[in-house]
C-alpha cells in the first residue's frame, strides 16, 4: 500500500507540521514567551549536524569498514568540551558586534574587510552547495526505493525524469518557500528565527526516534539482540575482519585522528552549525547543558549503526542491495510498512533540516557579503540614495535562498551518481575547516592581520580545490583521469593525491595535511610580516579582549570625523525602516542618559552605534561602506593614534608622580608636627627648671648679701665673729658656683655636647 499517493501526502503532512511548529514558535516569540529559550531546545537544534549523510550514510560506511564513521561523531563530542572556552567567546563577540554569519565574523575581526567576507562566502558556497545536493539526492533516492515496495530494488539509481515531474525539484521549491517564510521575516538578521529553530529541534527529535526505531527493530525484531548479531557476524567471512578494523579496513590510526580533528573543526565552522550555535543562540548559559546533552544525542544516534550495518550485510547476503539504504530496505524486506514510512520521514527530516539551515546561513552571506558590497560600490546603481532599502534587501535575501536551493538541485541532477556527489560529505568538511585558523587565531591572537587571514584562507582553499575537489571531478569523469594518475601534464610530483610525492595517506588526510600546512603557515607568516591598520587594531582588541570589556555599545573605539544626527537617522531608516530606526536610537539615547535622540551629540559613539545596528541588517563590511559614505571621516593615521596613546601615557605617568610627591609631603608634615610638639614640651620643661634653679640661686645669694651687709654696717665686730661670717660667705658663694656649674652642665647636655 506504500504507493506514491500515500508517501507524498504523508511527507506533505510532515512538512505541514513543520510549518505549524515554526508559526507557533514565531508567534510565541512575538508575544515575548520564547519557545526556544531553554538549553534542551538549543541542544536538540544543534542536532542539525546529523544530516541524511548520517542517517543513511553511516550504516553504509559501517558496512564497508566497521568503525570508520565514528570519528565524525566523536570529534564534536571532544569539541563540545572546548566550547566553554571557544564558543562562549565567539557568541559573546557576535552579540556585541551584531554578527549574523561566519563571513561577517571573520571579516569583522579583520577590519570589516569586504574582500575577506567575499572570500569566506565563496569558499562556503563552493564547499557546501554540493552537500545540499547530497541531501536532495538522499530524499529522491529513498523515495524511489520506498515507492517500489514491497519489492526491494538493488539500488535507488533513478531513470532520468523531466524536471517538472521530479519530486526532488518540488521538494526543493517547498523547502525554499519554508526558508523564505520563516527565515526572512525581519530584516534585522540578528533578531533570531525562533520558529525555524523550534522546527529544527523537532526534526532532530524525529530523526532520532526513527533511527532508534529501526535500530531496535533490526536488533531485537530481525535478530535476537546485539550478542546474536555479532555472533552471526563472527561467522561471516568479511564481517569477522571488521571486529578489529583499525589499522586495516578503517584506515590507520593517523587517518582516524585526522578525521576526528576534521570533524571537530567542521562542527564549529559549517555555516549551519555557526547559524544554530552562535546566531540563533538565545542565552550563552544554554551552552552549559548543551555541552553534555548534544554528545549524548550523538551517542544515541550511533548506538545502532553497526548492528544495522552488520544485520543488513547478512540479511541481504548475495543480493546487490546498497548498504547506504539498509536503514530503509531492512524494514521493507520484513514487510514493516509503517516502520519503513517512519524511516523515510526520519531521513526526510535529517535532509530538510540541513537544507533549511544551511540555506539561511548561505543566503545571509551571499546577500550581505557578496551582493550588497558590490551594489553599494557600484556608483551607477545609485542604490545608496534610495529612500527605503528594506524591501530590496529582503528581495535579495529571498532570491539568494531560491538560488542556493536550486543550485543544489541542479548540481544533484548534473552529478547524479558521480563520485563528486557521493564523497562530498568529507570534502565539504575539509572546505569549511579552512576557516579555523583565521577564526580561532583571530579571537586569541591580536597580531593576526587582514593580509595574513586573506593569504591563509586563499592558500588553504586553493590546496583544498587542488587536492580534493578537482580529483573528485576527475573521478566523476569531468576531467581526464590522467590528471589523477600521472599528474597534470604528466608531472608526477604534482599528482593531487600525492602532492610533492607524499604517498601512503588517504585522500582526506593528505588534503588536510597540505591545506592546513598552507593555511596556517601563510596565515602566521604573512601576519607577522605585515602591519595592521588602525581599524584592524581596534577590531582585534574588541575581539580578543571581549571578556575584559563589558561596556557594550558604550565602549567606543578611536574615531575622528564629523557626522550629523539627521544623516545617521536617515541612513538607519533606509535600511531598518523608520520606526525600527527610531526605536533603536531612542534605546541608545536612554542608555547614554539623554532624554531624546535629538539631544545626543553626533559623536564617535553614535557613529559606532549606527554601524553596529546596520551590521545586523547588512553585515559588517557593507555597514562600514554605508557609514563611511554618510559621515565625513578623517582617516586616523598610525602616527596620530600613537601620539594620542603617547600623550595619554604621559599624563598617566605625571599624575602618578604627583601622587607620590603629595604622599611624601603629607608624611613630612606629620613628622614636622611631631618634632614641633616635642620641642614645645622641652621648652616648657626648661622654663620650669630655670624657675626652680633661680629660686635655688636666691638662697645663697641672700645669705651672702645679708652677712656682707652685717660686716659692712658693723665694723666693730670682733675678729672671731667676722671670721665666722666670712667663712659663711665663702661657703655660700662656693654653693652658688656649684649651682651655676650645674646649670651650665645642663645647658651642655641639652645641646648634646656633654662628654
Amino acid at each position: 500500500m506504500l504507493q506514491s499517493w500515500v508517501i507524498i501526502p504523508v511527507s506533505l503532512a510532515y512538512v505541514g507540521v513543520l510549518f505549524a511548529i515554526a508559526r507557533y514558535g514565531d508567534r510565541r516569540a512575538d508575544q515575548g514567551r520564547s519557545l526556544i529559550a531553554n538549553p534542551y531546545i538549543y541542544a536538540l537544534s544543534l542536532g542539525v549536524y546529523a544530516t541524511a549523510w548520517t542517517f543513511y550514510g553511516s550504516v553504509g560506511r559501517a558496512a564497508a569498514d566497521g568503525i570508520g564513521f565514528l570519528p565524525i561523531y566523536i570529534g564534536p563530542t571532544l569539541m563540545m568540551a572546548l566550547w566553554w572556552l571557544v564558543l562562549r567567546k565567539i557568541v559573546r563577540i557576535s552579540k556585541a558586534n551584531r554578527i549574523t554569519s561566519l563571513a561577517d565574523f571573520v571579516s569583522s575581526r579583520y577590519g570589516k574587510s569586504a574582500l575577506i567576507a567575499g572570500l569566506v562566502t565563496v569558499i562556503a558556497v563552493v564547499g557546501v552547495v554540493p552537500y545540499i545536493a547530497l541531501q536532495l539526492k538522499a530524499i529522491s533516492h529513498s523515495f524511489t526505493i520506498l515507492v517500489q515496495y514491497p519489492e526491494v530494488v538493488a539500488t535507488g539509481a533513478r531513470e532520468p525524469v523531466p524536471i517538472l515531474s521530479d519530486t526532488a525539484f518540488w521538494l526543493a521549491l517547498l523547502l525554499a518557500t519554508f526558508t523564505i517564510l520563516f527565515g526572512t521575516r525581519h530584516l534585522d538578521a540578528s533578531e533570531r528565527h525562533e520558529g525555524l529553530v523550534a522546527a529544527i529541534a523537532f526534526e532532530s527529535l524525529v530523526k532520532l526516534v526513527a533511527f532508534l526505531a529501526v535500530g531496535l527493530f533490526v536488533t531485537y525484531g530481525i535478530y535476537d539482540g546485539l550478542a546474536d548479531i555479532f555472533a552471526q557476524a563472527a561467522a561471516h567471512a568479511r564481517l569477522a575482519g571488521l571486529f578489529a578494523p583499525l589499522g586495516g579496513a578503517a584506515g590507520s590510526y593517523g587517518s582516524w585522528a585526522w578525521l576526528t580533528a576534521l570533524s571537530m573543526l567542521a562542527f564549529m565552522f559549517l555555516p549551519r552549525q555557526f547559524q544554530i550555535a552562535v546566531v540563533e543562540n538565545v542565552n550563552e548559559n544554554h551552552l552549559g547543558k548543551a555541552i553534555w546533552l548534544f554528545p549524548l544525542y550523538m551517542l544515541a544516534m550511533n548506538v545502532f549503526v553497526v548492528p544495522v550495518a552488520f544485520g543488513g550485510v547478512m540479511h541481504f547476503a548475495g543480493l546487490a542491495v546498497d548498504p547506504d539504504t539498509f536503514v530503509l530496505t531492512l524494514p521493507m524486506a520484513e514487510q514493516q510498512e509503517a516502520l519503513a514510512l517512519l524511516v523515510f520521514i526520519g531521513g526526510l527530516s535529517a535532509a530538510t533540516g540541513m537544507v533549511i539551515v544551511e540555506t539561511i546561513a548561505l543566503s545571509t552571506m551571499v546577500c550581505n557579503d557578496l551582493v550588497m558590497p558590490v551594489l553599494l560600490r557600484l556608483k551607477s546603481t545609485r542604490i545608496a540614495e534610495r529612500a527605503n532599502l528594506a524591501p530590496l534587501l529582503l528581495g535579495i535575501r529571498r532570491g539568494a535562498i531560491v538560488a542556493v536551493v536550486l543550485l543544489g538541485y541542479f548540481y544533484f541532477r548534473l552529478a547524479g551518481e558521480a563520485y563528486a556527489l557521493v564523497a562530498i560529505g568529507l570534502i565539504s568538511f575539509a572546505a569549511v575547516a579552512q576557516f579555523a585558523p583565521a577564526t580561532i587565531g583571530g579571537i586569541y591572537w591580536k597580531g593576526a592581520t587582514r593580509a595574513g587571514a586573506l593569504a591563509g584562507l586563499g592558500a588553504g582553499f586553493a590546496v583544498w580545490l587542488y587536492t580534493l575537489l578537482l580529483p573528485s571531478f576527475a573521478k566523476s569523469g569531468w576531467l581526464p583521469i590522467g590528471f589523477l594518475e600521472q599528474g597534470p601534464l604528466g608531472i608526477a610530483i604534482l599528482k593531487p593525491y600525492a602532492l610533492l610525492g607524499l604517498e601512503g595517506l588517504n585522500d582526506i588526510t593528505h588534503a588536510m595535511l597540505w591545506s592546513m600546512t598552507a593555511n596556517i603557515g601563510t596565515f602566521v607568516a604573512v601576519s607577522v610580516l605585515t602591519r595592521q591598520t588602525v581599524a584592524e587594531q581596534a577590531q582585534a582588541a574588541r575581539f580578543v579582549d571581549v571578556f575584559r570589556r563589558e561596556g557594550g555599545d558604550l565602549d567606543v573605539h578611536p574615531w575622528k570625523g564629523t557626522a550629523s544626527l539627521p544623516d545617521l537617522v536617515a541612513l538607519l531608516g533606509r535600511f531598518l525602516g523608520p520606526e525600527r530606526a527610531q526605536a533603536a536610537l531612542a534605546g541608545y539615547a536612554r542608555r547614554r542618559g539623554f532624554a531624546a535622540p535629538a539631544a545626543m551629540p553626533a559623536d564617535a559613539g553614535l557613529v559606532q552605534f549606527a554601524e553596529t545596528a546596520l551590521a545586523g541588517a547588512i553585515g559588517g563590511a557593507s555597514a562600514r561602506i554605508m557609514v563611511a559614505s554618510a559621515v565625513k571621516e578623517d582617516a586616523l593615521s598610525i602616527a596620530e593614534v600613537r601620539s594620542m596613546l603617547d600623550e595619554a601615557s604621559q599624563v598617566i605617568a605625571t599624575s602618578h608622580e604627583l601622587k607620590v610627591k603629595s604622599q611624601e609631603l603629607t608624611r613630612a608634615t606629620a613628622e614636622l608636627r611631631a618634632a614641633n610638639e616635642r620641642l614645645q614640651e622641652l621648652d616648657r620643661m626648661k622654663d620650669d627648671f630655670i624657675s626652680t634653679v633661680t629660686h635655688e640661686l636666691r638662697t645663697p645669694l641672700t645669705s651672702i648679701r645679708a652677712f656682707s651687709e652685717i660686716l659692712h654696717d658693723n665694723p666693730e665686730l670682733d675678729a672671731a665673729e667676722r671670721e665666722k661670717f666670712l667663712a659663711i660667705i665663702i661657703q655660700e658663694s662656693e654653693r652658688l658656683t656649684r649651682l651655676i656649674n650645674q646649670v651650665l652642665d645642663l645647658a651642655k647636655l641639652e645641646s648634646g655636647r656633654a662628654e
Partner: protein
Amino acid sequence: MLRSEMKGQRLVAVFLLGVLLFNYPLLALFNRAAEAFGIPLVYAYIFCAWALVIGLLALVVERSR
C-alpha cells in the same frame, strides 16, 4: 568569573582525557579480535569511553552551577 574559569579548565581536562582515550595507543590496546558482553571489544570500548566522557562533561557542568 572565577567559577566559570574553573569550569573551563576542568572541561579542557576532560577534552584531553577524550583525546587520550580515542587515539593511539590506548585505542590499539582494544583493537583485538576479542569480545566483551558479546560485543566486539573495540566497539564496546569506544562506546564505554564515549559514555564516560559524556558523564564527566555532565558532572563538570552540572556540579559547578
